[in-house]
């Protein structure tokens, strides 16, 4: 097929326009919070959390404190603790329990073989959160300081975000019929307080972290400990860093 120069330019121009349009379209579908140039003063912070598995004693203080602070309805959990029991080298079949989310702690097993530990869980406040990506109307979003929040007056209750969260941290509030989840105690951290769960934790297993504050101990901590996030293969950009996270943890 021969083309003269004019035809070539015309075809090339069409291709360029179509490719750019397609690229722009795909880009807007992609996930990831790009900070806006006129972002408010909140953007001075970039919140995350450190959880130290080696310190957690499964007392459930965090679950109770969160429920008290945020009026979490019974049977639903903004945070919870899981107890793992791993026999031998079989990391694929741990036995896990979380009785009522560990709100009253755990029924004790003083003697047990194998490897046993507690894993507190909460919303990971991901930078590339799949839940924000799928919300059809913008009722869940990334705040300028990195907290994934819910706009209760805008949420339709479609539950797409609940399906999209790989960590199971969302639920539908039975009274408001909208989605609800850990807000990293946004009302507290915006006032300079720490989260309720960190406040109530007796061993310091949970620590709020401001990744943008050069004086925050999180930077030294991340440098000196082997940390992991949950389900790293999902590439959610989780900002909840676990020290001592075992391979058996789901």
């Amino acid at each position, binding site marked *: 097929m021969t083309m003269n120069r004019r035809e070539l330019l015309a075809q090339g121009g069409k291709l360029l326009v179509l490719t750019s349009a397609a690229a722009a379209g795909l880009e807007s579908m992609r996930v990831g919070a790009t900070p806006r140039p006129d972002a408010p003063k909140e953007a001075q912070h970039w919140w995350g959390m450190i959880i130290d598995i080696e310190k957690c004693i499964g007392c459930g203080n965090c679950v109770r404190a969160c429920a008290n602070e945020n009026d979490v309805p019974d049977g639903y959990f903004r945070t919870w603790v899981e107890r793992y029991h791993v026999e031998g080298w079989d990391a694929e079949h741990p036995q896990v329990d979380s009785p009522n989310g560990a709100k009253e702690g755990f029924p004790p097993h003083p003697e047990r073989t194998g490897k046993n530990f507690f894993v507190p869980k909460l919303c990971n406040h991901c930078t590339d959160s799949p839940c924000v990506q799928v919300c059809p109307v913008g009722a869940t979003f990334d705040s300028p300081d990195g907290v994934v929040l819910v706009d209760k007056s805008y*949420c339709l209750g479609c539950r797409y975000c609940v399906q999209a969260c790989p960590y199971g941290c969302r639920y539908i509030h039975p009274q408001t019929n909208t989605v609800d989840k850990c807000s990293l105690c946004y009302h507290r951290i915006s006032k300079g307080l720490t989260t309720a769960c960190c406040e109530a934790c007796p061993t310091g297993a949970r620590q709020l972290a401001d990744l943008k504050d050069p004086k925050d101990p999180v930077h030294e901590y991340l440098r000196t400990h082997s940390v992991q996030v949950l389900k790293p293969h999902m590439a959610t950009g989780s900002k909840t860093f676990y020290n001592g996270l075992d391979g058996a943890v789901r």
Partner: protein
Amino acid sequence: MHPLVEGFMYPNEVELQWSILIVLYPFITGLVAGAFILASLERVFKVEAVKPTYRLALLTALAFLIVAPLPLQLHLGHPERSFEMYLTPHRSSAMAMFGFVYLWYLMVVLLLEIWLDYRADIVRLAQTKQGPVGWLYKLMTLGSFNVSEGSRALDDRVGWIVTIIGIPSAFLLHGYVGFIFGSVKANPWWSTPLMPIVFLFSAMVSGIAAVLLLYMAIMKLKQRPIDMRCLDTIAKYLFYAFVIDFSLEMLDLIHRIYEADESFRALDFMVHTRLFVSQVVVQIYLGTLVPLVLLAATQVLRMRENVRRAIYAGAGLLTLIGIFTMRWNVVIGGQLFSKSFLGYTTYKVEFATREGLLPALVLMVLPFVILWVLLKLLPAWPEEEAA
């Protein structure tokens, strides 16, 4: 532990999020897409044999498309806020974009094609009918009573273009629903690039089967002869679509079994226990293999007319049950296992609640009621009506 839970589930996962209504929704939009593809067979691909079902297929698609948003509205925590999807659609959300795909399909494809095809009849009825029905027809003419040769030729030409656009639009309409599930990386039962294609082909199968059954039923009710050449052709296309659909589902299954990734053991266990009856017995055997064999038999063996009709009716019914069950297995199945892969929960369908069996049944009957009204307003076989 919760009595309905086996093993470990994240505490917030025990309750299912998407109910039988969300099973109904892809089933209904699938019927829409499939019926439309059947209609386009005649209009675009010149399969003249299926012309007797052309208008019926379009009206069937419309009846189901009108009902399609209703299960969603009943399911939403705040249905009064659903218009937000049109006001502030989140461009990265497949669900938001689907609102526009639906609107596009309803207005620019289906309603337009129906209007263009029926316009001459609408004008005639506007001029002859009295009372409120007459006013309805007058409204539908948009004030233009021009049915000259020129205008009818233009309608035909534009209608042809609309159908051409309509085919990828129908693919988009239902492929999108597949994408809504297939793009959820958190759920390995859903997350596969094959999902939109599997949904699409099963949609075509269900839509064609629905029109086939409706044609037989309506002709029987009107005591009119069934055009066997038409019926045989529809059954042939049903068979082809089914072969492709079955191949795709088998491909997905074989791929999963072979790769056996992290989620496989949990999913395999679920299919063998909680999902055994609906997946293996109903969807695969009764809903796919049996109709496939029946339809293959009619393609290969010579059979008398009444035997073929009986087989088409049986195969068609089993197909619809099978495709509904496939939607059930995808939507409900995807929520029965824990994302920790360590446990399972149970789905208890209630009866007379907002998301229970009763509203689901009502919503399944409603399209047929609407179709009956549409057929009264816009007769699908005018030559026979006039006689």
